[in-house]
């Protein structure tokens, strides 16, 4: 039967969310001839719809449904209702992401083994490793058209990169380049080359940056095997007496409760909504939430330690021109405990427009100390810190029973406090980033605190032993065999790298596994 599918069709795979995980899984399954219904809470926006204006675009794309926050992270104070800057739309946060596409380092798959016991951290080895993932990474790089992989050239460096690169070289860093980016340096896969327009975070109007919204999603739909239901907000996953999932209740675009039957359900709503949905799906058989016999659903929330460094020079930089994330330093990504922390971090250029710089440079600050920095906006260069943060059981997504969303469902409360290792790494990264800029003549540099999170990871983590996590090596629930997790919430640890490439690689691999298990009659 071809899409659209009937609500009572129990042969379909239902995927919740259409971002880097769900969107890719949906297309990969559809290409294999498997019927898929994808439920997407947001609407559909394509390059012609994207708005190159920071606040207007934020209103168009950002997930603004209520969430609450707690813990000692500064986001809970400055942006208490907005723990994450992620997208509610077909294609999910692949519309917003910067495009950085780097593989985990080998040692990062085995953080527990390589970092040892870190007090207060709930470290665990992934049940998979670099060798197993290598072919899937290659498929992901080919799909996304990642620069500096295969025979694809790197992007040219913009002004912000040139300052960054000169600073890196002055400090003796050797691994500095314009990054491995899912942004075309030449026409590729029916998408044009980057025009150095800026506004990568607001959706690429040229389609030069890979997004599931205009690649995997329409290609999956073109097979006739994929139906994407927009503005369909999943409310609860249902199961039978045997403990198998049987369908998904969701609110449709008109706010009416519907139920789509399913053969398999894959959850890919990001690291807040995925555990929220599992917890909201509690039943008499699963009183602590679906797939939660380990008690780990919602726990071990990671967000990369992040932070930014902005610096002012005595001459113009115009950092907003061109690719938002235009280059990387990888020298500090290694694991080297002599620096006073385990794991490592990447430094990547970043720029914000004037409106967002005012909001994020030092949230809450005012007076001349703040405004004299903005006065020299044209002379600013900027970078972002992406480092591995420690999984902690107490950093977690829970249901806030006191706050309900527009459908009457308890919202996610996101609790996060820095681990001492996170603080030590961030302090080191600030120092190095500021030193880079100082080395090339910065007259002032500023350690900017973390923004609302874009890398949200770990709340349904993968584990070898069902006692330690929520899903197995395939992203399959330890407890419920026809329930999968397909987004960043399955990350066992966060590594230092931007997560999208790994999410995509895992989704391609998971699609292969699901198809093979279906054909064997195991699913």
């Amino acid at each position, binding site marked *: 039967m071809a899409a659209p599918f009937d609500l009572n069709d129990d042969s379909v795979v239902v995927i919740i969310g259409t971002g880097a995980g769900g969107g890719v899984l949906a297309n990969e399954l559809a290409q294999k001839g498997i019927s898929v219904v994808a439920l997407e809470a947001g609407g559909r926006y394509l390059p012609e719809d994207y708005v190159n204006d920071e606040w207007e675009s934020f209103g168009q794309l950002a997930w603004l449904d209520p969430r609450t926050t707690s813990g000692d992270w500064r986001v809970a104070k400055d942006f208490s209702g907005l723990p994450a800057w992620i997208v509610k739309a077909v294609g999910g946060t692949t519309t917003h992401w910067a495009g950085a596409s780097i593989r985990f380092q080998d040692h990062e798959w085995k953080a527990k083994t390589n970092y040892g016991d870190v007090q207060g951290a709930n470290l665990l080895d992934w049940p998979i490793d670099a060798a197993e993932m290598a072919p899937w990474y290659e498929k992901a790089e080919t799909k996304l058209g990642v620069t500096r992989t295969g025979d694809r050239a790197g992007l040219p460096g913009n002004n912000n990169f040139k300052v960054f690169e000169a600073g890196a070289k002055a400090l003796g860093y050797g691994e500095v380049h314009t990054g491995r980016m899912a942004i075309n340096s030449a026409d590729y896969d029916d998408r044009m080359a980057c025009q150095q327009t800026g506004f990568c975070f607001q959706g690429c109007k040229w389609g030069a940056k890979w997004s599931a919204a205009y690649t995997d999603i329409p290609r999956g739909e073109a097979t006739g095997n994929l139906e994407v239901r927009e503005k369909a907000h999943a409310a609860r996953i249902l199961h039978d007496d045997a403990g198998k999932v049987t369908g998904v209740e969701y609110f449709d675009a008109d706010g009416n409760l519907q139920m789509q039957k399913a053969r398999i359900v894959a959850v890919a709503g990001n690291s807040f909504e995925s555990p929220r949905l599992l917890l909201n799906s509690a039943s008499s058989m699963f009183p602590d939430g679906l797939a939660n016999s380990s008690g780990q659903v919602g726990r071990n929330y990671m967000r990369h330690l992040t932070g930014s460094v902005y610096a002012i020079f005595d001459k113009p930089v115009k950092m907003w*021109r061109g690719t938002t994330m235009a280059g990387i330093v990888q020298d500090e990504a290694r694991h080297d405990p002599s620096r006073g922390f385990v794991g490592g971090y990447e430094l990547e250029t970043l720029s914000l427009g004037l409106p967002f710089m005012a909001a994020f440079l030092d949230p809450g600050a005012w007076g001349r100390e703040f405004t004299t920095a903005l006065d020299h906006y044209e002379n600013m260069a900027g970078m972002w810190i992406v480092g591995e943060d420690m999984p902690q059981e107490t950093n977690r997504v829970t249901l806030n029973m006191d706050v309900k969303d527009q459908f009457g469902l308890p919202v996610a409360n996101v609790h996060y406090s820095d681990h001492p290792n996170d603080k030590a790494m961030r302090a080191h990264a600030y120092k190095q980033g500021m030193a880079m800029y100082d080395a090339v003549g910065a007259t002032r540099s500023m350690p900017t605190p973390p923004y609302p999170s874009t890398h949200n990871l770990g709340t349904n983590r993968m584990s070898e032993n069902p006692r330690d996590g929520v899903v197995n090596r395939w992203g399959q629930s330890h407890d419920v065999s026809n329930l999968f997790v397909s987004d960043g919430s399955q990350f066992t640890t966060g590594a230092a790298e931007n997560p999208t490439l790994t999410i995509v690689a895992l989704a391609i691999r998971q699609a292969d596994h699901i198809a093979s298990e279906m054909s064997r009659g195991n699913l």
Partner: protein
Amino acid sequence: MTRTQTPRGMTRRELLSRGVTAGASFVVGAGYLTAKDAAWATEMDALKPETMATLVQMARDIYPHDQVPDENYVVAVKGYDDPQRVDFVEAGIESLNAAARGKGYGSYLDVLWEKDRVDLLRGMEDSEFFQTVRGGLVTGLYNQKAVWPIFGYEGESYTQGGYITRGFDDISWI
């Protein structure tokens, strides 16, 4: 402590709409901005003219940019000239004036040095009124397209084909 959707948290979305509202007011009320000194008296809908003048000074003291003219600060706070918010704003400005009187000045506007005005603002930094005004300015001031060129910011470039041939890598001093 679990934080629920506090007024500050909500402010982000409110501010977005307020920025748009303020921009619209600017178009409608552009005429009065040319007469800098006496303008408030004829153009206010709800607030007392001296209240608006004090609010504009307060806005400049919170986010002082000497190269940005008054009209942009007026636009940034014009949304408070609203019958529904008048009590909140008049009370807030009165508390600021009361603080000034406590230091021996006639009113906030009679405090001549910026440093002394800022001291008064620091004293009320945690109040809902101050935080509402400050938070509102983040979008009300910096999201005005009219101020962007003052800071050198160029805004969108898509309609001009991006910067691929227009200087994305034109830095010469590095």
